[in-house]
């Protein structure tokens, strides 16, 4: 059975990880722009990163038959300086036409400050203006609930189309409010700080899997690029049939991504 990992930062993974993922059945990945572990000092730092995501990673994926798609944007951890943020946002239109770019992401909130909120708003507006899909990062741990509430408010006020917006890193206390409003939801399978694999299967069993997809969120932290196939195994062991497993691990991502004319599985 094939799978898609809709949220993984391949820039911080090895080429061996691409190979392992391909062996496990990975057909495609989508990689949102994120924080590098340090704040970039210049907008040009982002320019180079956007080139990396749109030129180098697709080539690395292709070596193993994995389609590589990307999302571009300014992550909330680097969004405190408004002037700097506006300069980075001004770079985005130049890249949005590139063949592997599905939309704007991951944008959202981290510590839920005024400037983070403003930069998030600006990028949602840009996505709507350029008819891009949107991938949203929700904050970590104790900030997730509050941040998700603010994110939903901004998306509503901006008239962002829920069917073209994926809200990521949902957990038990945030998934219902996201799904009830018609958005797509991503569950990040992270060994410690986000959602474990058994809990993700619980979420699917309790809420159904409509508009839900799981991802590894793989990056340079403790994360596992094989989380999605491990989730598939857990679903199988818990008695789910292949059709039910395919939804959150393959077909829902295809349905969501296919709203961008650049996405293809052919």
């Amino acid at each position, binding site marked *: 059975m094939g799978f898609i990992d809709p949220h993984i930062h391949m820039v911080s993974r090895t080429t061996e990880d691409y190979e392992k993922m391909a062996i496990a059945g990975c057909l495609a990945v989508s990689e949102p722009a994120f924080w590098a572990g340090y704040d970039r000092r210049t907008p040009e730092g982002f320019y180079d990163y956007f080139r990396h995501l749109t030129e180098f990673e697709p080539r690395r994926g292709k070596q193993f038959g994995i389609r590589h798609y990307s999302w571009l944007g300014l992550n909330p951890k680097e969004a405190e300086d408004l002037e700097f943020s506006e300069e980075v946002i001004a770079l985005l239109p130049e890249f949005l036409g590139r063949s592997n770019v599905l939309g704007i992401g991951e944008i959202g909130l981290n*510590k839920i400050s005024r400037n983070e909120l403003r930069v998030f708003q600006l990028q949602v507006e840009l996505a709507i203006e350029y008819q891009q899909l949107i991938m949203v990062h929700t904050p970590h741990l*104790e900030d997730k*609930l509050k941040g998700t509430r603010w994110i939903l408010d901004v998306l509503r006020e901006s008239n962002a189309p829920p069917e073209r917006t994926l809200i990521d890193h949902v957990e038990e206390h945030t998934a219902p409010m996201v799904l009830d409003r018609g958005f797509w939801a991503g569950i990040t399978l992270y060994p410690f700080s986000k959602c474990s694999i058994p809990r993700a299967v619980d979420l699917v069993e309790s809420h159904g899997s409509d508009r839900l997809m799981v991802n590894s969120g793989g990056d340079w932290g403790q994360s596992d690029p094989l989380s999605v196939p491990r989730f598939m195994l857990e679903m199988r062991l818990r008695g789910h049939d292949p059709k039910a497993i395919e939804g959150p691990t393959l077909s829902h991502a295809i349905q969501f991504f296919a709203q961008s004319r650049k996405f293809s599985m052919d």
Partner: protein
Amino acid sequence: MKRLSASELIQKDFIENRSRLIDLAAFLDRIDRASHVSLESDFRMGSLQKAIVELIQGGSDRVERIQNLLSDQSILLLESAEKNQGAFGAVQNGCC
């Protein structure tokens, strides 16, 4: 395929969760050995103790109740996130 029954789920995951429970007990003992101040004196440990009470309350919404207990329920925006980037896993000024 048929979904697992309660006894099949217990068979599958009991040992793993037994181990998690003993790990949690060992973590609390370790902190006790390291200091004689009360666990509640650290806001994270205070929240953890409240969460343990929720755990034994029963009901099938334990996860959601604990998630809410460990979440910031306010709606205030930070004036600046500049010197305030990390998350702690519990709310500093108490909650709920």
